[in-house]
């Protein structure tokens, strides 16, 4: 019964795989009920999400955004804060980048412009998370509640800003103007032409760097140690001289900044304008990714790619199989989170029974 009795490969490889398989099995059942062949469908899905290079490009493109929102939620969780507001912070981050670009894209050269816009995204995302952080630290308002509220507020605010101020004259689409090309993030297909016409851009590389920095900062630095201590036992952290309010505020700033960074990929790497509701739920998916990836860099990376693949592959599949609406993959996402993120020990008894038998 005890997980500790199992060898490491069983707990860290076999069990997650079994869980993933279980989720996919349920999904296959649903696809069958919808009147399609599950095996064929899964084949199409895997092919278009992973095997086909252009599809893989899209998978990684979506993953880049999710890595950032996943990191945003994860770092807050390390400090014991449940930041539900990554969605809103990402939305504001998009505004930060856009304001910089609208002001400067015709004056600054690209190598200055892009970092400046990224800084804008980080700043706006960070500040949007700062307020809930400050209120938690100084006024004791629950960060869960305030960040939910701030999501709603950001939707209203962004709606107002975009519709009333950013729509260029003569346009009716609720979006800013398209940025000058110097502000477009370099695409990876210029180095890897095999990727074809995918929006995959350097923000994926940035995301990988962010994962590494996150891993080092949380597990290898004194700051990360204080962060985790505060998250696990605030009383002990206070005893240890760690300033709780400072930890909360700084963590929320960073969490918001990472959420802001998540906006860079879609806004500067793909659409090249700020559109209404562009985060499209990426902030919420970040919660799922942080939880499923256990706030560990490798876990975050893998779950981000998994979610990216589901979005890309599922979309292609629903193109080919009109009976399978794209929403099916939202359902499958939920199943995967449920099986891999919340029932991680489902197969532990079975596996330990197997090992016990072998021992005897």
């Amino acid at each position: 019964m005890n997980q500790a009795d199992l060898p490491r490969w069983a707990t860290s490889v076999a069990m997650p795989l079994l869980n993933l398989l279980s989720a996919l099995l349920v999904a296959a059942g649903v696809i069958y009920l919808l009147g399609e062949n599950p095996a064929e469908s899964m084949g199409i899905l895997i092919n278009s999400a992973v095997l086909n290079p252009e599809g893989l490009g899209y998978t990684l493109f979506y993953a880049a955004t999710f890595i950032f929102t996943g990191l945003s939620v994860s770092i807050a969780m390390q400090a014991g804060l449940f930041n539900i507001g990554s969605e809103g912070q990402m939305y504001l981050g998009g505004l930060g980048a856009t304001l910089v670009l609208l002001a400067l894209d015709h004056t600054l050269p690209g190598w200055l412009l892009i970092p400046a816009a990224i800084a804008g995204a980080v700043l706006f995302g960070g500040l949007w998370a700062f307020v809930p952080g400050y209120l938690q630290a100084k006024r004791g308002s629950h960060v869960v509640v305030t960040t939910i509220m701030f999501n709603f507020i950001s939707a209203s605010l962004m709606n107002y800003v975009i519709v009333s101020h950013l729509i260029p004259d003569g346009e009716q689409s609720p979006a800013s103007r398209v940025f000058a090309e110097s502000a477009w993030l370099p695409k990876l297909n210029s180095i890897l032409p095999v990727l074809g016409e995918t929006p995959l851009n350097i923000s994926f590389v940035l995301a990988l760097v962010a994962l590494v920095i996150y891993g080092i900062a949380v597990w290898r630095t004194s700051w990360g140690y204080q962060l985790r201590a505060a998250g696990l036992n605030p009383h002990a952290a206070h005893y240890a001289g760690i300033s709780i309010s400072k930890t909360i505020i700084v963590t929320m700033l960073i969490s918001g900044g990472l959420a802001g960074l998540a906006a860079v990929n879609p806004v500067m790497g793909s659409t090249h304008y700020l559109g209404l509701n562009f985060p499209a739920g990426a902030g919420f998916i970040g919660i799922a990714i942080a939880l499923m990836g256990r706030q560990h860099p490798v876990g975050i990376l893998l779950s981000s790619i998994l979610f990216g693949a589901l979005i890309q592959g599922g979309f292609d599949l629903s193109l080919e199989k009109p009976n399978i609406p794209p929403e099916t993959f939202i359902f499958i996402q939920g199943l995967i989170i449920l099986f891999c993120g919340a029932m991680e020990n489902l197969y532990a008894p079975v596996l330990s029974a197997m090992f016990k038998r072998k021992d005897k």
Partner: protein
Amino acid sequence: MFDDFQFASILVSTVRNAPVLIFAAMAGLFAERSGVVDLALEGKMLAAAFVSAAVGFATQNPWLGIAAGIAVSAAIALLQGFVSITQKGNQLVAGIALNIALSGLTFVLAQFFFMQGGRTPDLGAARLSTIVLPGAEAVAGVPVIGWIYSSLLSGHTILTYLAFALIPLVHWVIYHTRFGLRLRAVGENPHAADAAGVNVELTRFMAMLTAGVLCSLSGAYLSVVQSGFFLRDMSAGNGYLALTALVFGNWRPVYTALGCLMFGFFAALQVQIEGVVFPVIGKVPGSLIQMIPYVVTVVVLAGLMAKSVAPKAIGQPFVKSR
């Protein structure tokens, strides 16, 4: 300037808005007082809204629809219980996962059965009818009292009355029954409850079951009462708002209900002041007015309220070990 501003209308609207939140928040209250974080209110609402509408339509009987909604929502709550209590999984993950899964599944099923883009057909006559309280017409003319009786109190569906009746009922169950005592103990200190001979897992499961039933009424209210059909994602964040009301109300039934009413009130207020020309600032854009309920919540939480204290064992699976 406030010629259009009708307080009476706001109150009526508040009463109409509140049940969705009250049912969901009371559901959350049972789950969370027992120590299980219930982020899946949204998902259960959606599932119940869909099933109630679909079965209600198929049978042309709203009651059968609501009953089916209750059964499904309760089953989901038990699944959530299995994951969070038996499997001792992460309760937040379980909640979010269920929300995502059900958002997708309700659409897929609705599309599969009705082919209307994830919408169920109109219930038409198969909706709950409103109840006109006896004598409501007669006293309608009496100033104030007549209005309160005939417009504010009369003319709602049975679910609305049930929602308001639930407030004292939940209070009674939580504070004055054996189930409530065990529930609170299990959410506060499961080890103590266990040592006192209370079956922690059973108690939590019963709490989840109650939560499932109550939450289904919130969904049924959305589809069978308010809209007359199911539409994808029609819970529109109300599950999260209900959780906010719960935190706001310190996990106590009456205060939580007040939180729900506050949301209902500000939602109604916001409707009324959209387009009103204010002195000095003039006409505030609608999108900014939409923020009002949320800004008020933040301000109230930050300013007026004492720190809210969650049940101590919330979110932690009960493991007999150090």
